[in-house]
Structure formats: structure tokens, C-alpha cells
């Protein structure tokens, strides 16, 4: 008899931080000390979170493995489970299964210049990769981060984002679709930031995560800037339930997004029917 892959492991909420309207970051630790020590994950992976009595939802891990002893999940209140999660307080227990999915190709990106493009809550999984890269800064070349949201009120992790911009050989550019009275920066969709950056296409990899509508336009900009198809990395979103390639919901053509993805290169996505 094998271990049950579907059993949620208990985690206690250590901290809850309101990132923006309807978006919270939860810091979690495993209840089981053995698991607390042994749990490993890579940037780009996700877990299935159980809110007992309500259900399960797939959430990408936003902390990076460089930070030991806890994980962070950034959750938008969009459905039954995430709404219930937003009601949870410090000290309460939730369930977690994972990590699932493939990860960002961390090692393959060594020595390269990285262009991060994050739209809205898409920054959450990117943050995991970005922080891991900054923890091993010498392995990577120039890091450029383009971050856009609908409104200033929706910007996430701003204190960290600003810190990233101050790192050596690193640049951060923000934009919002619609400004408010306080906003001093760029106004416009994220593609408008592309005019403000230049990079060596041969050395550069783009890592793009955002709402479905964003991909088409951002990929077009990357291609305009001469990035090769296999230098453009995306994370696709599908309805996910089991996380282990059995329930069938996340199928994109013949592959399971939860196992062969959610991270893909554009070269893969191009030939994958139904992908984008």
C-alpha cells in the first residue's frame, strides 16, 4: 500500500498580510515537524490548499526556497474556497498538498539576462523565482522587472519590488492601466513599458505570468524585440483539482498542465493546440 497522494497535510497560518484589495498573503508552517524540515519546492510550483469544510484550490507558492522553514501563498478572493480562506486567522489550520507542477527552468537561466513581465497577481509566482535569483545573484546577468496592474490599489509586494530595483544590475518599471490621485508613475498597459527597455535578445530570457489576455500582447512584444521562441517562458493557468494528472480538468491537448506545466516555453505553447 502506497502513501495516499490525496491526503492534505496540515499547516498552521503563522501570519496574514493584506497585500491589496481582495488579496492576502498567508505565511504557513507544516504541523508535522518532519515535513517542516523535509519539504522542498522550486519556484513556479503550486500546491492544492484545503479549507476544511469548503474545498480545495490550486495556489502558486510565492515564497522562494531560499527562505527556509515556511512557505507563503498569495491568494486572491475569487471563488468559494479562496473566499473562505480570506476568513482564516493566524493560528488556524488549513490543508496543503504539493508541490505540484514543473518549475521555472532555474538552472537553464544561469548566465542569462532575465526580463520578468508580471501582470496583476501574476507577480506572485514570479516573486518566488525573483527572490531565489537575488539570493544567488552572481549566477545571473541583468535582471529587468516589468510589473503592471489595473490600478495602484492592486499593486502587490511593493516594498520588495522597490528593493529589487535597487539591486546591482537590476531595474524595475511599473505601470497601471488606470491611475488614481496618488500615482506618479507610468499609466498604460504593460506593453507600453517595452519601449523603455532594451536588451540583447540572444542573451535574454523573458519570464511572463499574468492574466490570459496579457500573454498574446506581451509575447508579441518579446518577438518584436527578437527574443527566440524558446527564450520566452510562460506559466499557463487551467482549472486544476487533483494536481497529479488524473482528474482530467487541466488537460491542454494531450498534456496535463499540472504535470507537464504550468511552466512552458513559447516554442512549446505555439505547437500546443488549445494552449493560448
Amino acid at each position, binding site marked *: 500500500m502506497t502513501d495516499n497522494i490525496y*491526503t492534505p497535510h*496540515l499547516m498552521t497560518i503563522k501570519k496574514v498580510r493584506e497585500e491589496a484589495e481582495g488579496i492576502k498573503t498567508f505565511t504557513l508552517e507544516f504541523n508535522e515537524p518532519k515535513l517542516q524540515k523535509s519539504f522542498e519546492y522550486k519556484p513556479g510550483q503550486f500546491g492544492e490548499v484545503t479549507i476544511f469544510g469548503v474545498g480545495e484550490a490550486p495556489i502558486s507558492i510565492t515564497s522562494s526556497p531560499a527562505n527556509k522553514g515556511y512557505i507563503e501563498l498569495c491568494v486572491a478572493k475569487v471563488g468559494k474556497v479562496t473566499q473562505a480562506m480570506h476568513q482564516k486567522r493566524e493560528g488556524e*489550520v488549513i490543508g496543503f498538498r504539493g508541490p505540484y507542477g514543473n518549475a521555472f527552468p532555474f538552472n537553464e537561466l544561469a548566465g542569462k539576462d532575465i526580463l520578468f513581465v508580471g501582470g496583476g497577481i501574476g507577480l506572485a509566482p514570479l516573486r518566488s523565482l525573483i527572490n531565489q535569483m537575488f539570493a544567488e545573484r552572481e549566477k545571473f546577468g541583468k535582471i529587468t522587472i516589468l510589473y503592471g496592474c489595473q490600478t495602484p490599489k492592486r499593486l502587490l509586494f511593493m516594498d520588495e519590488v522597490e528593493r529589487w530595483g535597487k539591486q546591482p544590475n537590476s531595474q524595475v518599471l511599473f505601470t497601471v492601466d488606470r491611475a488614481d490621485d496618488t500615482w506618479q508613475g507610468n499609466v498604460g498597459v504593460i506593453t507600453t513599458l517595452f519601449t523603455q527597455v532594451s536588451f540583447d535578445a540572444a542573451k535574454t530570457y523573458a519570464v511572463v505570468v499574468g492574466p*490570459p489576455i496579457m500573454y498574446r500582447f506581451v509575447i508579441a512584444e518579446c518577438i518584436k524585440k527578437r527574443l527566440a521562441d524558446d527564450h520566452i517562458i510562460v506559466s499557463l493557468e487551467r*482549472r486544476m*483539482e487533483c494536481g497529479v494528472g*488524473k482528474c482530467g*480538468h487541466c488537460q491542454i491537448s494531450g498534456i496535463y498542465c499540472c504535470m507537464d506545466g504550468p511552466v512552458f516555453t513559447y516554442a512549446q505553447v505555439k505547437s500546443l493546440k*488549445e494552449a493560448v
Partner: protein
Amino acid sequence: MNILKLEKSKLSGLLKSWNDDFEVMVPAVENGNLVFGNLGDYEPVLDFNGRPLLPPKEFMFPQIEKTFSFNAADNTKIGIETHLDNTKRVIWGIRPCDLKGIKTLDTIFLSKYVDAYYEARRNNTILMGLNCNEPCNYGFCSSCQSGPFANGDFDILFTDLGSDYLVNIGTKQGEKAVSKSLKLFKTATDADQKKASDIEAASRKAFKNLPAMATAQQRLPQYWDDVLWKQESVNCILCGGCNFVCPTCHCFNIEDVACDKQISTRMRYWDSCQLGGFTQMAAENTRPLQEERLRQRIFHKIVYTPDLYDGALGCTGCGRCIEVCPVEIDITHIIGRIKVK
């Protein structure tokens, strides 16, 4: 072990002999319907044509299944109880198409991440197949290489020779099952085996209007944008039946059902990729049109499954999806259109 022979009259006694240690599921007839019934509750019908509408995948992968119970006594302490079904079962009379179906499900549920619920049931089930001496009403298994005779995927396989069965033992589990009743069997002669061979050839020959599965497998990708998907799906009523009765369909939905303030159970249910909600997310539906869903089902059976699982076709040719469709959407008809172009 040798290939054995069993007089037909002795089968009923053999089945009863397993009843002490196993739940024995046999073909039975209920209100004129062929079903699998428990030997204790139903009179077995050992001479029958065709197959039941619902495939025996139900015994390994039930329609509605309790996986866990969660006891949230308070918000900081959660008790988790797992519900595995270790009932020992014998299923007799499984047709080759369904044996193939179970094999496909084994590949999906038991590889990479092992599904503990399927595993528990599967490991405790002995599969006893019965070859088809003639095509059934809707079947086209011979064009899917999954019938009318099985060539594997069984613990024990019976072939109706007339007054006897030819009995092939396929696994150690099968061997163990007959070990206590060996005296009921004789050794099969060469003539017996030849007879079985002839019956298979005759059965194979009797199929009419077989769809060209192999051609379809090759050519389908060219038909991705074809208008046929819209035309063939125009009447679909989104009943999900085609997926529910398919021996290889395995999609399921997980729901946590609250029983009271404290206890909730995690249930899993059969799901259908033909339903709109199957791909629904908060922001969008990644397969919103019926033609896309029909295309997904056909491609999954004929193109993706072979790609994922070493050429094994995802369709076993049992014809149930045709039988169960209220508006007569017919996979063989769709495949026929692939040939024509």
C-alpha cells in the same frame, strides 16, 4: 500453467465456491437489462450477448466515492480519516473491450502518482474475462485491437466453445483463484484450442462497417479546424453520458461536502469533459464551445492517449457512447468523415 477446460455446467459451482472469500459479481438480467450483479442477490446469466451498459470500471472507480472525512473539532485541530475499500472481489464475464479499458485505467491511476483508492480496489479484484463469439450491437472493438477476443489484461479468460469453456490463466492471481478447484477442470486439447481460434476468426469476420481507426489516428490532427466538429455537436444536450459509460474515461471532480458544522467529507464524482463547467475558472472558460469539447473527447481517445501511453488507443470500441447518446452522436460516424477527405 496449462490451458484448461471447464464443462459449462460446472461454472455455476465454481462461482459459488468463490462466494465465501469474495464478493462475486456476475452478469445478470434485471428488468430486461444486462447488468453486473452480486451472486448473492442475483441469478447469474452465464449465456448472454453483448455487455452491460455500464462498464466494470465502476468497481475500481465508483461513480460517487468518499475519499476522506475531515473532523474540524476546532479551527486548530483537524482529524483526517481515509476511506479505502479493500473488499475482495471477483468479476466474471468481463468482455475484452472492458478488460482493455481497465488496463488503460491502471496506466492512468497506478503510474507516476499512485491513486490509493483505485489501487485498493484494483489490487483486491480478480478479473475474469469472457471472449465475444460474435459482435455486439454497437461494438467495433476489432478495429481498436481490443476484441472480440482478449490477448492479455486478464487474470482468467473464458472462451465459450459450446458445451465447455476454454480457460486461460493469465496471472498468478488467477492461478491462485482456481487452485482450490482444480479438480473441476480438465486440460485443454489442441483441438479445443483450435476450436477457440476458429471461433475468434468467425467472430472477427462477422463485424460489419468497421471504422478506419488507424487512418483516423494518423489523420485526425489535420482535422483540428474542420467544420465537422460543429456539425457533429449541433444536437449535444450536455448529458455527459458518453464519458460516464466509457471504459477508459477517468475524469473526476472533487467536492468537499459539509455534513454538519464539524464534519465534512471529501467526495469524488465522475466528471465529463462534455460539460461546460469542466474547464470553468474564475476568469474564463478555456473550452467554451460544444464543438471544442466534442473534439477534445475524440482527440483524447484516439490521438492523445496513444501519444501518452505508448500507442495504446484510448477507445476500446465498445460502442457504449453511441448507445447512450440521446441524440445519436456517433464516434464511428465521425471517424468515417475523417476517411472521406
